[in-house]
């Protein structure tokens, strides 16, 4: 398969993830959609690594996976803290900093 097909799939996954971040209100699902977008970027990086025949892009993808794991850890900790304080699990309700 040519590299362009992989790029098209990646663009589709990224835009689905972006639409999910805009649409959904549960912070859990917003985090899942962030994962979708990071994975689309990973697919792009690996496709370009294949295109150049150079493994540097794969290292980049692994580092992106590490950063995604950190982001998930902190985000889920925030959601657990919200649940502990009896706050509503809803991104529309969390507007204390809105000014």
């Amino acid at each position, binding site marked *: 398969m*040519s590299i362009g097909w992989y790029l098209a799939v990646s*663009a*589709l996954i*990224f835009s689905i993830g972006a*639409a999910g971040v805009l649409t959904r209100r549960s912070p859990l699902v917003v985090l899942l959609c962030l994962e979708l977008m990071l994975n689309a970027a990973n697919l792009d990086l690996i496709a370009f690594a294949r295109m150049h*025949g150079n493994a540097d892009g794969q290292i980049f993808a*692994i580092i992106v996976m*590490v950063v995604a794991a950190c982001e998930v850890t902190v985000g*889920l900790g925030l959601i657990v803290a919200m649940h502990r*304080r009896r706050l509503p699990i809803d991104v529309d309700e969390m507007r204390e900093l809105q000014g």
Partner: protein
Amino acid sequence: MAEVLFFLAGIGAIAGAIGVVVLRNPFYSVLALVSHLLSLAALFLLLRAEFVAAAQVVVYAGAVMVLYVFVVAYVGGQDEPLGPRAGRGLRVLAAGAGAALFIELCIATLGSGLQAIGTDGANLEPGFGSPEQIGELLLTRFLLPFEIASFLLLIAAVGAVVLARRRGGISAAEDQARYSAMDMLRPAYTGTMAEGVGGPSSGRQALAVSPRAEAADAGSDSDSDEDEA
């Protein structure tokens, strides 16, 4: 053969992504993301990134998704209520924004004029994407990012523990039940501020108390009761 596998895995990945966004129960969204990640690992294998595909399955679809499932079970994966705020107009607007983003990304990547996009990629040396090559690169050329990533993981773990820790904000009784290592070392009734005002003496919980000290404790308790009366 590669074409068939590509279309199977690509359709699976896209269907999983749509399932994450569309399904109403967060638990089903997590399961859809797991299937999406597995299909994506198949795509990585087609791109000759064997180590990244294995890490994707083990770390992402294994560990991170189990963390998600635990948090969904803890928070309670209630269905999302259909509130009046997020109306139909906003959903249509979000879908339009997604479609615009897709067209823009296609123009940006496919129309970039890169010569190699239409090809199958460069010729590869035999060990491309193997754990051997990735490990060698990580420990020689990319040693600094590797170490920084380990620090980042440590900071994230500590931050998550601090964020999700039980605080005494809701019920004060949890705070009083907590005692530090210094309480173990100190003999009971050696005059802390808490004991002075007739409050709980934290040393009592940690140490076996002699009868005399217990009597004194009873006396101080009755004293404080009188004071309050």
